[in-house]
């Protein structure tokens, strides 16, 4: 599949934007400016960038506790996200959700869910809704290897399968459910194999390679838009940082982390684009600088924004 130059650059920009956002979030968290907990997407950028590159604004995504990358790829604004993380009133969700619960339905972000696996049947419902309303909208549901052991993985994908719903289930297999390795929690190597029990295609792909993700998800999205039903795509990837900022990773070796970092999705993609003459080193540096400045602005916006009033706690329970 020949990918247009604009699309290649768009995905590149998305990946760099996610990386620079997450690096800045880690810093702000360490400095005590972000309360609660944040789960870094660093290392997994190719999955969100490659998959969501196929979506229109009116398509949907369901995201997870490790969701910043998905939101940015779907068009989420980094200043509004940063303000939400800072628990400010100007944040995406009035400072009520925080890192794990950002939503913007106007651009198809149906929400990041903090309960692992809970987005899966919700994505099925968004797919059902699109089908009943007679649109060709598709829904991408992101979840991790851990979620594939939750009962709703079975219930939600089976239901989407029997009704041929336009949903792409993307498992971001980063090998660990917090500390428990995939090799301990299941007997199979490829989670994609589980698709067999739902009678749908299941494809495992290198999640560190954005072009591979783009091509595989492209087929799944096309299939969904044609009304042929869901696909399970497993992207094999890795998170560089701990499960959440500030948590140690005694369950894996330094060597393992370094081995994966050699396959860094941004580094390898930069090299590839330069080799393809789609990008120059100079242009890459400019994009990087642009993203760094965007994050400065995002943090400034968050810092200067007001906190909600205490009594605003009582609002937004009921419509």
């Amino acid at each position, binding site marked *: 599949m020949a990918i247009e130059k604009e699309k290649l650059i768009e995905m590149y920009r998305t990946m760099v934007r996610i990386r620079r956002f997450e690096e800045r979030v880690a810093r702000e968290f360490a400095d005590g400016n972000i309360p609660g907990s944040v789960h870094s997407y660093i290392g997994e950028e190719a999955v969100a960038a490659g998959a969501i590159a196929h979506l229109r604004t009116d398509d949907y995504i*369901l995201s997870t506790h490790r969701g910043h990358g998905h939101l940015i790829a779907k068009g989420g604004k980094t200043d509004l996200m940063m303000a939400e993380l800072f628990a400010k009133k100007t944040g995406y969700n009035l400072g009520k959700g925080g890192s794990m619960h950002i939503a913007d339905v106007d651009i198809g972000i*149906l929400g990041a869910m903090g*309960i692992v696996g809970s987005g899966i049947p919700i994505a*099925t*419902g968004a797919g059902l809704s699109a089908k009943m309303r007679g649109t060709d909208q598709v*829904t991408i549901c992101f979840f991790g290897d851990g979620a594939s052991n939750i009962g709703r993985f079975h219930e*939600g994908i089976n*239901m989407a399968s029997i009704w041929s719903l336009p949903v792409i289930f993307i498992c971001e297999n980063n090998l660990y459910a917090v500390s428990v390795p995939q090799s301990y929690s299941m007997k199979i190597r490829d989670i994609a194999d589980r698709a067999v029990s739902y009678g749908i295609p299941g494809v495992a792909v290198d999640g560190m390679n954005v072009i591979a993700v783009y091509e595989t998800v492209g087929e799944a999205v096309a299939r969904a838009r044609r009304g042929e039903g869901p696909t399970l795509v497993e992207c094999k990837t890795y998170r560089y940082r701990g499960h959440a900022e500030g948590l140690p990773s005694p369950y894996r070796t330094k060597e393992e982390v370094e081995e994966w970092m050699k396959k860094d999705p941004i580094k390898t993609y930069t090299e590839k684009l330069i080799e393809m003459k789609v990008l120059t080193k100079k242009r890459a540096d400019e994009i990087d600088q642009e993203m760094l400045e965007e994050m400065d602005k995002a943090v400034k916006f968050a810092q200067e924004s007001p906190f909600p009033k205490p009594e605003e706690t009582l609002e937004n*329970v*009921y419509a």
Partner: protein
Amino acid sequence: MREINFRQAIGEALDEEMERDPRVFIIGEDVGVMGGLMGEIGGLYQKYGIDRVRDTPLSEAAILGAAIGAAITGMRPVARMRFGDFLGVAWDEIMNQMTKMRYMFGGKIKMPLTMDALSGAGRRSAAQHSQSIEGMLMSIPGLKIALPSNAHDAKGLLKTAIRDDNPVMFFEHKLIMWTSPKSEVPEEEYLIPFGQADIKREGSDVTVVATANMVIRALNAAEKLQQEKGISLEVIDPRTIVPFDKETVLNSVSKTGRLVIFTEECETGSFAGQVAAIVADEGFDYLDAPIKRVNAPDTPVPYGIIMEDFWIPNEDKLIKAVNEIT
């Protein structure tokens, strides 16, 4: 006025709302050809087709998850959960998703989602098909809860639930559904607003707040006490416990000075306890006697006639409580 029974009221409410609004659809187990466990929605599948009367696999979590996904993207699902006890299988969808998403997302979504389920004891169905769990649900902010005691209220409340932009739990008491008593129900359309209690019988001596099947038993007891002892009960059916019409109850207690709360819940963590707390807090000066609760014991619902009848609150237990404070 014409009379219809409880099951017909459920079926009519769904039919009218589906006819009125193409976004309304039914999702759940045995909703299609079966027409519901007691045939209460018979004919809807034939009228609206498989798309809008959608049988599902045995997947309670996915039924509610899918209903949530549909509700936030422009549809108005009615998820039929069969028995209240089965909500346990999909508890996460209830307490973590449908009721929290609007709040977590800063009011950015609406959740027009109605759940209905059979609730309550009396059919010898044992512990896993009989419990009244409204007390547990009541402590989940973001959820509304209706539990009608007759056909008229059931129809008007269910239509209101479907038009509400918030998640609503609508309980059909199993015994009322089974015996399906008739009541006067207008031909023309009507809605019953949430948070509006109904005084089922006016009285002057003791206020009785009762829900679902206990409303029927409270009315029996009121008749008996009036005839045998000349004691006058005022029977109030809140109809929705979230939102709860506390004003009607406080007004009544200001007149009677006495309150008994009569529900089919285990006593601990119950709606009955909440009503007692509200009246103790806001209506203490009206009271001439201690507040009494007549509920079920804190055990699972037992099987069989002997033990289940012992477990379920009844007229005699209510009369005994009234006698203690009059």
